[in-house]
C-alpha cells in the first residue's frame, strides 16, 4: 500500500453538508485538513428537498452561523425564496426557511472549500480505516493509496452500502445515479462498532414546462427576505414562487391499487424510515379518512426546470408515479424527470459516541450526519461543525467542546443522539428541547458567538459587529430602565393610553404591557432610534418575555446540580452494587458523562441515579482522603 506522503491533522470523509462544515472548521482552526469525496461534482449536494431551515432546523442554522459555520452564509448567497415562519407567534418559534438554488448552493460551497488555505479537496472512495491499537491513523482509498492523519471525521450520508429501491427493483447506489460506498461499514464493524440500517426516500422530480401553473395556487416568498447569517446584510438573489397542488381520491385509489408494487409495502425494505416524513403510500394507508394531501411544488433552481413536489416521496414504480401525479390538479400532463425512490443505508449507532461525537472505541475517529442516524442538512451540518471543532481541539490538545441542552439545539441533538437509542432517522423538533423559550433564532448570536470566538472560528469582523450589537442592547436596557413617563407628560400618557398614571412608569414596565411594542416607544425617544433593528428586537424580546425566560432559567439551574457530578470515563458499573442488571446494561451502553445525562437514559430510574450518586461521592471522597 503506497502512502500519499503528506501527513494531515484531519481527514474528513464525505463532502456533504456535514463534511463541508467539518473540514472548513478544522482548516480554519489551523489544522491541515483533507476532504475526500466520491464525486467532486456533488459537493454539498441537496439530495432531497432543495430547502434550508424551517422550525428547529432554522434554529440550528443560526447556531451554526454564530459558531462560525458556513451554512447560513451559503443559503443567504444562493436562496431563491425566503420565508419566515410563525411571524405572528412568539419569538421562540419564529424561524427562517429558504428554497435554495440547488446547483448554486453546491457550487458556492465547493468554491469556499477550494479557497480555504489549509484544506485539500480530493476525489477518492474510502474503503478502509487505518488504526493502531485504539487510535485512528488514516484511511485507504479504493485505488490502494493511503492517507495518514491524526483524526478522521466520517460523514458518509446515505452512501454506506446504499441500496436504492424503485418499485420492486433495487440496485446499489448512494444517491440516484451515484455509486454506493462498499467496504467502509465492514471496516467499522471490525473496529468493534455496531452498525444498523435506516431508510429514507425522495419524490420524483417534475419537469417545470409540463406543469400548468395557471391552475395552481402560488406561494411567494417574503417581500423583504430575512437572511440566516448574522453577517449577511441583505438577500440579493432573485426570488421565485412555489406552488401548491393536492392529491385527490383518484390519486389515492391508484396508490392503493399498486401497493403490492411498493418496495415499502412488499417487505423488501428492512431499514426503518422516518415517521415525520412518510411516503405518499404510507400517508394514504395510515390516514384513510383524508381524501386529499397538500404538496408544495418547489423549484430546484433558476437554471433548472426540475421541480420538487414536497411530501410525495415514494418507492412505487415510475409508471405508477407518473399515473398518480397526472391525477393531480395542474399536473395533468406532467413529465417526470427523475423517479422518486427509497434508499436504505448503514448507520453507526450513535450511543457509541462521546458528547464530542468521537467514537468511544477508536480515539480520533468522529462521526457526523446521517452516519449517526439523523436526517436533514441542518442536523448534519451542525454535527459536522461540532465534530470538526472537536477533532481540531484534539489535534491542538486544547480540550473539547460540549454544547449543553440549555445552550442550543446542537446540544439537545447531540445529547439525544448519544443517550437515546435510534429507532428512526432523527430530525430536530422544537418540542425536543425542554428549554425551547431560551433557544431562539434571535439570540443564537448571544449563545454562540463568544464560544466561536474562543475556539478561533469567529473572525474579527463578526466579533466586532457582535460586540457592537451587545453594546447597543445594553445601552437600550439602561435607557428603558432609567427613563420614566410621568403624569406631567400628558401627551404621551394619552398616546399610550395610560389613563390615570399615579406615579411615574419606567419604560421597561411600559414595554411589558401586552399592547406595547418597542417601535411605539422608540418612535417617541430619539436615543432608542440610534439602535439597530436587531438590537431593538433583542431588547423587546428580553423584556417582554422575561417572566417566561426566568422560569426557564430556573429550570436550567435545577438540572445543573446533577450536571455537575461527573462520571469518570473508566467507571466499571459492575462495581456499583445495588444496580439492577438491566440498568447496568443501559448505563454501560451509553456511558453517560454526568449524573443528569445518566438520568435521561431510557430505563435508568431515579433510584438508580441516587445509587450512582452515592457510589460516585464515596469514590470521590475516598480518593481525596487517600491523597
Amino acid at each position: 500500500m503506497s502512502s500519499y506522503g503528506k501527513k494531515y491533522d484531519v481527514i474528513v470523509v464525505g463532502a456533504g453538508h456535514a463534511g463541508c462544515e467539518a473540514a472548513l472548521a478544522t482548516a480554519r482552526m489551523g489544522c491541515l485538513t483533507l476532504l475526500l469525496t466520491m464525486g467532486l461534482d456533488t459537493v454539498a449536494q441537496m439530495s432531497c428537498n432543495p430547502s434550508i431551515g424551517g422550525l428547529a432546523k432554522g434554529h440550528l442554522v443560526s447556531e451554526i452561523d454564530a459558531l462560525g459555520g458556513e451554512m447560513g452564509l451559503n443559503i443567504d448567497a444562493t436562496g431563491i425564496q425566503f420565508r419566515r415562519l410563525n411571524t405572528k407567534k412568539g419569538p421562540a418559534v419564529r424561524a427562517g426557511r429558504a428554497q435554495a438554488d440547488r446547483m448554486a448552493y453546491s457550487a458556492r460551497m465547493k468554491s469556499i472549500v477550494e479557497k480555504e488555505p489549509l484544506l485539500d479537496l480530493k476525489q477518492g472512495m474510502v474503503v478502509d480505516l487505518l488504526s493502531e491499537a485504539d487510535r485512528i491513523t488514516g484511511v485507504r482509498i479504493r485505488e490502494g493509496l493511503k492517507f495518514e492523519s491524526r483524526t478522521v471525521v466520517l460523514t458518509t450520508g446515505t452512501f454506506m452500502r446504499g441500496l436504492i429501491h424503485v418499485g420492486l427493483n433495487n440496485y446499489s447506489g448512494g444517491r440516484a445515479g451515484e455509486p454506493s460506498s462498499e467496504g467502509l461499514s465492514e471496516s467499522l464493524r471490525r473496529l468493534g462498532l455496531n452498525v444498523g440500517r435506516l431508510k429514507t426516500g425522495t419524490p420524483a422530480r417534475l419537469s417545470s414546462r409540463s406543469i400548468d401553473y395557471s391552475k395552481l395556487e402560488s406561494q411567494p416568498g417574503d417581500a423583504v427576505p430575512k437572511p440566516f447569517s448574522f453577517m449577511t446584510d441583505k438577500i440579493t438573489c432573485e426570488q421565485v414562487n412555489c406552488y401548491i397542488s393536492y392529491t385527490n381520491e383518484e390519486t389515492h385509489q391508484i396508490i392503493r391499487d399498486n401497493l403490492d408494487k411498493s418496495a415499502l409495502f412488499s417487505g423488501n425494505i428492512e431499514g426503518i424510515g422516518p415517521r415525520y416524513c412518510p411516503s405518499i403510500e404510507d400517508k394514504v394507508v395510515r390516514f384513510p379518512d383524508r381524501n386529499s394531501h397538500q404538496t408544495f411544488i418547489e423549484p430546484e433552481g433558476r437554471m433548472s426546470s426540475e421541480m420538487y413536489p414536497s411530501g410525495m416521496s415514494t418507492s412505487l414504480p415510475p409508471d405508477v408515479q407518473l399515473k398518480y401525479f397526472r391525477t393531480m390538479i395542474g399536473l395533468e400532463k406532467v413529465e417526470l424527470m427523475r423517479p422518486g425512490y427509497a434508499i436504505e443505508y448503514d448507520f453507526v449507532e450513535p450511543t457509541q459516541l462521546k458528547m464530542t461525537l468521537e467514537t468511544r472505541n477508536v480515539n480520533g475517529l468522529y462521526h457526523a450526519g446521517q452516519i449517526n442516524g439523523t436526517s436533514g442538512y441542518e442536523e448534519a451540518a451542525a454535527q459536522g461543525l461540532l465534530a470538526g471543532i472537536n477533532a481540531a481541539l484534539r489535534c491542538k490538545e486544547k480540550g473539547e467542546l460540549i454544547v449543553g441542552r440549555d445552550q442550543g439545539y446542537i446540544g439537545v441533538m447531540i445529547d439525544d443522539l448519544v443517550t437515546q437509542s435510534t429507532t428512526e432517522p432523527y430530525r430536530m423538533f422544537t418540542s425536543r428541547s425542554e428549554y425551547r423559550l431560551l433557544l431562539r433564532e434571535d439570540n443564537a448570536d448571544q449563545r454562540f458567538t463568544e464560544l466561536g470566538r474562543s475556539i478561533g472560528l469567529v473572525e474579527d469582523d463578526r466579533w466586532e459587529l457582535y460586540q457592537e450589537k451587545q453594546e447597543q442592547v445594553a445601552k437600550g436596557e439602561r435607557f428603558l430602565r432609567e427613563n420614566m413617563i410621568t403624569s406631567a407628560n400628558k401627551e404621551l400618557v394619552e398616546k399610550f393610553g395610560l389613563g390615570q398614571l399615579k406615579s411615574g412608569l419606567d419604560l421597561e414596565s411600559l414595554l411589558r404591557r401586552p399592547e406595547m411594542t418597542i417601535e411605539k416607544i422608540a418612535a417617541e425617544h430619539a436615543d432608542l432610534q440610534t439602535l439597530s433593528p436587531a438590537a431593538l428586537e433583542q431588547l423587546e424580546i428580553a423584556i417582554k418575555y422575561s417572566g417566561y425566560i426566568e422560569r426557564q432559567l430556573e429550570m436550567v439551574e435545577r438540572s445543573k446540580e446533577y450536571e455537575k457530578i461527573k462520571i469518570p470515563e473508566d467507571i466499571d458499573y459492575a462495581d456499583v452494587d445495588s444496580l439492577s442488571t438491566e440498568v447496568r446494561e443501559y448505563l454501560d451502553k451509553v456511558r453517560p458523562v454526568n449524573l443528569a445525562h445518566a438520568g435521561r437514559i431510557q430505563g435508568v430510574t431515579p433510584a438508580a441515579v441516587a445509587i450512582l450518586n452515592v457510589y460516585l461521592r464515596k469514590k470521590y471522597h475516598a480518593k481525596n482522603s487517600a491523597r
Partner: protein
Amino acid sequence: MNLSDTIIAPATAVGEGGIAVVRISGPRALDSLKKYFRPTTHNIKFSSQRLYHGTLVDQDEQHIDEIMAVYMSAPHTYTCDDVVEIHCHGSQQVVKSILNLYFDYGLRLADAGEFTYRAFANGRLDLSQAEAVARLIHAKTDSSRKLALSQVEGQLSRCIDDFTERLRKIQILVEAWIDFPEEELPREDLEHIERTVSSVIEEINTLIDTFNSGKVLADGASILLVGRPNAGKSSLLNKLLGEERAIVTDIPGTTRDLLEEGITLAGVPVRLVDTAGLRQSDDPVEMEGVKRAIDKIGHADLVLLLIDGSKEVDDQDIYSYRSCETAPTFVVETKSDLEKIADLSFVTHPLYSISIKTGEGLDELKEAIGEYLLGDYIAANESVMLSEQRHYDSLVSTLKNLQNVLIALCEGQSLEFIAFDIRDSLQYLGQISGETTTDSVLSGIFSQFCIGK
C-alpha cells in the same frame, strides 16, 4: 436530587406523641425560623444547640402554635447543614399548618430519606449505610404509590392518570401546531384545549378540597373489639388505653354502644372501637346496637374477637365468631389466669390467650397487632403525611400552570407559551404518576396527524 436548597419535613410519626418535631435543613434554615418565630425573650441572638421558647406565627402574625425551637449550625448536625427543629404540639393540623407556612416561604418538602441522603452526601455516612438509604428511597417510591392507591380507594391514581392523559393529548395538539406550522392540522382541535384545561382545573380543585379536609390523614387503623357481654372487652380497652394512651379523644355522636378511643400501638395510630356485646335479642334498641357493630366489622382494619376462656363456648360466642368470619380477625381468649374450660378448636383465625389480671399474653398480643398493621403502615408511618403533602403540592403547582394556560389563551399568547405551561403542569403531575417524555409526545403527533415535509 438537589442538595443545596432548604428542605422541611416532620421528623416524628404523624399522630403519635404529644409533641411533634418538624425539621428544617439547609442554608435557609435559620432565616426560616427567624421569619415566623416570636421568642418569648425579645431580641435574642440564636446560639447553636440551645432551646428557645416562643410562638410560631403565620404571614399575618396569627398565632399557629406555642413551640420550642432549636437551631444547630453546620457542620455538627445530622445532615451537616444548618438545621432547625421546631417542637410543636403533636396535632396533625398544627404540623400541617407549619409545613404549609414554610412551603409558601419557599422551602421544599424533603423526599423520603432525604435527610439521611444529605448526611451521606456531606460525608457523614459510609457507603453501606448510604446504599441502604438509596434502596429505601426506591422502596419508598413504591410504597407511596401504594399509599396513593389505597388512600382514596385507588381513585387518586386513576384521577392523575386521567388528567395526565387529557393534558398529554392537548400537548400533542399544541406541539403539532408549533412544530408543523405548514401542515393542515384540524383547527377546531385548538378550541378543544380551553375546554379540556378548564375541566381539568375544576376537577383538580375538587380533589384538592378533599385533601384539605384532612379526612384521609385523620384516619388511623381501626381495631374493633367484639365479643359477648362480659367477655372482657372493656377491661382490655382500659388496659390498652392505660398503658398506651397518647392522645385520647372521645368522638361525640357515636351511639352509647360504640366507644372510640385513639391510641398509638407499636407506632401506628389506632382507633379502638368498643362495641356492644354481639348477641341476638328481641329488644329493638339492642338489635340496633348490634347492627351497627356488625356494620363496623366490615370496615375495621382488624377485629379482636374476645371469648371468655373460663366458660363454655355458647351460642353468643358462635354468633360473634360467625359475624367476624370474613373480616381480618384475631381471636382473643381472655381470663387465662382462670381454669381453661372453653374449647376453641373450631377457631381458624390467629388465636391469642391473655389475662388482664396478670398481664400474661398482653405483650404478645400487642406485638402481633403491631406486626399485622405494620405490614401496611411501616412505610406510611413516616410518609403518610409526606406523600399526601407531596400530592397536594404537585396538584397546587399543576393548577397554577393550568391557570396560566387559560390566561395565556385568553390573552391570545403564542402556542409555545401555552406548551410551556402544559409541559410544566404535566411535570408536576408526573411527580405523582410517572413522567411524560418528549418522545411519547412526538409519537402521539405522528400517530394522530399526517405529517410529512
